[in-house]
């Protein structure tokens, strides 16, 4: 549960910001799916603060909580030959997996 909000890492992004999913090495355990790596999307919502799955997997309860976001991608950006320009996909990502994107 994300009760201890004061300990969190400051959230860096707001709804509407363009972000790119970082290409980080796969640690033993992650919930960041391969298909969104290096792809740029838009912050659709801020959800909650929590530990990252990587820290939870190692029982690092003292690790700092991070803001999570729902990020919206255009399907065309995930799969270049996707034929319907308006279709989208959303998934949730923690702050540390994202970097600002300008395009």
């Amino acid at each position: 549960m994300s009760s201890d909000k004061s300990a969190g890492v400051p959230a860096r992004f707001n709804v509407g910001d363009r972000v790119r999913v970082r290409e980080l090495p796969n640690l033993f355990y992650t919930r960041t799916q391969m298909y969104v790596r290096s792809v740029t999307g838009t912050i659709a919502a801020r959800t909650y603060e929590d530990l990252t799955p990587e820290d939870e997997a190692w029982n690092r309860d003292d690790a700092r909580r991070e803001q999570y976001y729902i990020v919206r991608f255009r399907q065309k950006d995930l799969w270049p030959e996707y034929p319907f320009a308006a279709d989208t996909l959303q998934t949730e990502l923690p702050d540390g997996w994202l970097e600002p994107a300008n395009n």
Partner: protein
Amino acid sequence: MSHSHDHDHEHDHEHPAAPMVEEITDFEVLEIAVRELAIEKGLFTAEDHRKFTEWAEQIGPAAGSRLVAKAWTDPAYKARVLNDAVEACKEIGIDWTEPTGSGTPSDYMNLRVLEDTPTLHHVIVCTLCSCYPRPLLGHSPYWYRSPNYRRRLIRWPRQVLAEFGLLMSPEVEIRVEDSNQKCRFMVLPARPGGTEGWSEEQLAEIVTRDTMIGVALPRAGRTADDTRPVHKARRPVPHETEARP
């Protein structure tokens, strides 16, 4: 009421005695054996198991159906659902912080309800495993957990929907929600025509499980989901090369 266990004396004439499987299967035995040994090894307690069984027996999609029907008839409630779904669930008797009445994994703490419009249709998947809003929808159907659904929905959502009999117009944006973190998601489908003046109870009947996952649309007269065989992975009609890993 007779205390006889003889099925011929069943008094409920509207529901004649159901046939039973009259032999003991290896799976029935295995389930009991594994559970008993796990309890004896201290992996969990019999009391925990009883509480979860009670909870698991009574959950189903009815709570989700009530939520949708209430949101359709009460715009203020719909606004509360979209703003804070966990709070709004309390009004229909579902407490996400205590679904079993005996504590719960933190996974259940976040819920977002996704509203369909005439130009936007949501469909939910968990590519990672099978995350699902169980306090509202009960246990996920088998196909939802199948690798086939999880792998293909994100790439070919329109084809997968077509396999469910749902052909979406190209004008409608399909938005796939991959629920692979701690938020759980449910679709608030659009209220269909032909339901004007219906009560919440009538409306709830057409809000089936599949309409809240987003693989079906509610309509007047449709009160049950189709049973769906699990498709073994088969080659979909490719609209892109298969080469990309």
